[in-house]
Every structure is written in structure tokens, then in C-alpha cells.
């Protein structure tokens, strides 16, 4: 299951990330923000005006906006 398939308000743990699917700098930026393998996250907000992009993810005490393409590269497990 990938992160983009998780609904608003749901929690999950990141099992693996397909780093090759992300631009190198974006991978770095995500890791620097704590979005990495093993991180526990929650979907806070999803999409604007009917689209499913962007996504606001809660990691620890931070809320981080990412795009659906980033979320699709992350394998997660519901917790």
C-alpha cells in the first residue's frame, strides 16, 4: 500500500521509499524533514477543490506539504 492511497486522518508507518522515483534533491529534502523509512506519519489534509494534490503529512510535531507523486513512492503500513 502506498501513502497516496491513505485517507485523511489515517496513521501509517513508512516501510520503504522508492528513492529512484524521486528527484535526488527532493529525496534529500524529505529525509531532512524526517520523512524517511521507519517514520510514523498521519495524513492531515488532502487535496484542494476535488483533486488529491497536494497532501499535508504530519511527522512528529511538524506538518509537511508534499505532492501525490512523492506519496506514491512510499510503501506504508496502517497503524
Amino acid at each position, binding site marked *: 500500500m502506498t501513502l497516496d492511497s491513505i485517507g485523511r486522518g489515517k496513521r501509517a508507518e513508512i516501510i520503504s521509499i522508492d528513492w529512484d522515483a524521486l528527484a535526488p534533491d527532493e529525496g534529500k529534502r524529505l529525509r531532512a524533514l524526517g520523512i524517511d523509512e521507519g517514520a510514523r506519519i498521519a495524513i492531515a489534509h488532502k487535496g*484542494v477543490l476535488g483533486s488529491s494534490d497536494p497532501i499535508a503529512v504530519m511527522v512528529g510535531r511538524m506538518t509537511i506539504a508534499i505532492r501525490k507523486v512523492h506519496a506514491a513512492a512510499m510503501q506504508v503500513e496502517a497503524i
Partner: protein
Amino acid sequence: MNVTRRVALVGNPNAGKSALFNALTGARQKIANYPGVTVERKAGKLALPGAGTVELIDLPGSYSFDTTSPDEEVTRKVVMGEFEGEARPDVMVVVLDAANLEQHLVFAQEVIELGLPVVAALNMVDLAERDGLKLDPAALSSALGVPVVSTVAVRRKGLDDLIAAIADAEHSAETMKDAEPRPHITLPERRLTARNIAKAAILSESTERRMHTGLDKFLLHPWIGPPILFALLFVIFQAVFAWADPFIGLIEGAGEAANDWVVAAMPEGFVRDLITEGLLAGVGSVIVFLPQIIILFAFILLMESTGYMARAAFVMDRLMASVGLSGRSFIPLLSSFACAIPGIMATRSIADPKDRLTTILIAPLMTCSARLPVYAVIIAAVIPATTVGPGIGLQGLVLFALYVAGIVGAMIVALVLRRTVTAGAASGFIMELPRYQLPRLKDLLIGLWQRAWVFLRRAGTIIFAATVVLWLLLTFPKAGEGESQLDASYAGQISAAVHPAFEPIGFNQEMTLALVPAMAAREVAVASLATTYAVDSDDEAETEEALRGQIAARWSLPTALAFLAWFVFAPQCISTIAVARRETNGWKWPVVMLTYLFALAYIFAGATYWLSVWLGL
């Protein structure tokens, strides 16, 4: 020893670094660009008790020394001592958000590993307590191996302790021979350590936290969020145009008074004309926009300091993505409605170079306040003041259409650019949404003052030089008997030479002539037309009224519409081009910008002219 000691503030974005910097240095800050890059260098003086004065540098916020943006790269280079012309800091103050230690301690470890003297400022402890978090600075200090001081920058709490700690560290820096780096560890290790240290430093944690999730429920709501943003934008534009009026009047009054004073004080002649017609008229034409820019920036700074700006970027991201940009471009483009110059400077926060370049190239298409005088005069002259629906005037509708034409044009251009010259690496959107905070008046005022000053200094010098040159071109050579000064002048000769190119798109000779001095600033076109029609009046309102009549009598509707279409696109602003050159480090992109904008202006003015002739308007 007489060498200035340097103390650098580092930390994650949103750690409250700038507020701490403002609190420590007050308004006496020096802002400059690091040579070769377009990242602002903010520095100020900090007096240490009994240890003299040090220079305090506010480095751009960073998540890591493994950098991903031009901002972060500057921080890394300065801290490593690799930045040419910039001495390595003697002491580092790492600023931590008390409510988000787990994240901020990751970068703090990287900083401490460098082996330089470090002081940690545990900032925003009040917000942490509001979130139900009680922390133990002593535990944190022993875990990190550096002194830790609790601060609340915006309330000036803990500042004396912090300054004392900096003085101690600064003293130890003098005795320390060589910075000895501690062993490097990997990011996952750092993250684990950060989590453990944060956990150990928390005395108590209650669950009543995150008041901001309540606000986000509305502001980031997929259907309620966008209308709230658009309503806010509507209020901002109303304010920019309505609230600025009295101040614009004041500035114009002051300009006229200065003009009268010079006229009275100096003998008639070249120097007096240069001062009144060149300096006062030229510089005045820029300063007049200051109120609108300050009002717009007040809103932008408020949106930034409260944390709403990141939400606005979130809400706009989907729309911007449809033309290959991201929500990050929204902020610079919003600024460009006041003036493209600060807008282009605001693109610095965009990490992706191609994203940033695209934003710079389309920024001049946002209808800036300098176009307004041109639009206002011509619309009033040729568009009848009738209504086309309940409460909808035709003149207002045309003005609105001109704004929309600029926005739609920008979107189409962005789409084309992202597929051609700036193609590559699909721009992503990864952005921290900071916690909501109440803005502080002092930080707001310092920010406004800095932006106003940068605008005045840059635009003022360029505009000043340009208007003087144009004034000289309009004044020389002197016309003979019975000859019009405008026709005889170099400017007149230039316009006569280029006029054949503008005839096919419906422009008359006076319009072509107006375009020449309007290269300095768009609104100069109005003054130039007024001069051309020999409307001699000191009173500005009267000039406008008379000019309106002249245009109404002499211009056909297609010609006037073509002129309006021209101004939607034409890059008639030397300052914008100069800033674009500076921000892109070369002439290549400004030339691309000039070429495509003039081409669009020509095509659309021509199309407008021939379409309206064909429609029999």
C-alpha cells in the same frame, strides 16, 4: 586584537531565528547580497558585556549541511569557512524550536559536530508550553555537550542569558587552538539520537496541543480553503488601491512643493531643468508607488509571520502545478502585482533553479501598479462609462480584463517555458507548514522598512539615471524657430526611426514617441503623451482631464485598445530588467525576457487592432 569576531545564527527554517536576530540587534541591521549569489546577507552588531562588540550574522535557515537550495548552500559554505570573502564564524548559535526538538536537534548535531564553540538557544519555549510541553534545558545541555539557554525572542526573554553564554563561548574560542571536528555519524543515527535526547529533555507533556489543527480545518479545507484565500486576496487588492490614495497624494504634494521650491530658489537654466524635470519628476514617479508597495508588503509579511503564507502556497499548488510551477511561486507572483522588482527578489526561496527562473520570467506579466496610470487615462478617454449589467461598469470591466489578460498570459507562458527553455525535473512541492503564530509589530516594522529601503535604493538609482538620460534625449538638440522640441530632439528622431515598425499595429506617431521614455517606467508614457499634445498645465488632475480629451478626439478605438494590449505585455521597465539581470547573474535571461515580452506585446497589440477594425469598432 582588532579583528571583528563573528557570531552566526543557524537553525532550521521556522525556528524563530529572524525574530531572535531582530531582538538581539534591533533595527540596526545591514542587508547586502553575498557576492555572486542572490541570497541576502543579514548582519548586525551585538555588544557582549565586558567583551566588546561582535558581528552577528543571520544565516539562511537550513535543514542540513547536505544542501538542497541556494539558501542552504550559502549557510553551509559560510559555516565551513569556504565562502570567499567571508570569514568563518567564531561562535555559532544554533536556534531550536522548543516545540519541535526531535526535528531541530538533527541539524543541531551537525552543527555541534563541526567542533566550533556552539551555544544552543531553546527558542519559543512559550509556544511549547502552550502546546503542553515542559522542557529541561540542563538535561538538554548535558546531552548535547553545549550550553543551552531558554529564550522567547519575541518577548525578549532569556536574551541576557544568551548574550552571556555567547560571550563565554566567544572567550573559549580565543583560547581554543584549532576547531577539532567530532566524528561524523549518519542521518539515521542522528535522528535516533535526536529522538532520544528530545525524549530525555521533556519533563512533562500533555495532550492538549495543536491549536492550529483547528484553524487548518478551515484554511486547508479542500472546498472552504480556496474561497477564504480568494476573499483575502480581494481585500488585499482593495486595500492596495483604496488605502494608498491619500499617501500617494501626500507624496505628490511633497514632490510639487520641492519642485516649486527649486523653481523659486534657482535661476532658470539647464541645472534647474535637470533637477525639476529629470530628478524630481523621475525619482518622484517611482516614490509614488511606495505606499502601494508598503501596503501590499504589510499583508505579505503578515501572511508570512502568522504562518498563513505556507497555507496559501498549499491551496494554490494544484493550480500552479497545472502550468508546471509549484505553490512556492505564488508568493513572488503575488508581490509582482505591486511591483515586479520585489517579486523577482522573492523568488529566492524557490529551491528548484528552473522553477525559479520560470517565475522570474513571468513575473513582469502580473499587472504592476505602474501600469495603472496608463490604463486609467486611456480607459477613461475611449471606453464609455456605461453599465453592462447590474453594478458592472464597462470601464471597470475593461480594467479587470486587462488584469486577467496578464494572468492568463503568464500561465500560458509558464506552460510553454516549462516545456522548452526551462524544461526538465518536474517541480515538486515539499514545504513545511509552520505553526500559526501571532505577528509582532516590531518584526513587521523592521521587515517593512527593509523592503521599502531596498526598493527605494535599487529602483531609485536606476530610474534616476534612466530619466536623466531620457530627459537629455528629449532636451537636445534644441529645436529651431517654429519647430517642435519633441520632433527635433534625439528622442523624437529615435521614435521617427522606429515608427514604421509600429504603424502596422495601429500606433500613431505620438504613441511611438511615448514608448521611448516609457522604457524607464511605464507611467512615463502618460507624461510623455501629455507633453506631446502640448497640454501645458501645472495641475496634474487638469493635465489628465485635458489629455483624456485629446486622446478621445485623436485616437480611434482600435488604436487605443491596441495601446492597452501593448502595455499588458511590454517589458517597459528598466528596473525590472536590471533586477532580472542581477538575480539570474547574466544578460542571457533578461534578453530572453525582453524578446518574448516585446514579441507578445507586438502580436497582441496588432491582433487587438485588426480584430477591432474588423469588428467595426
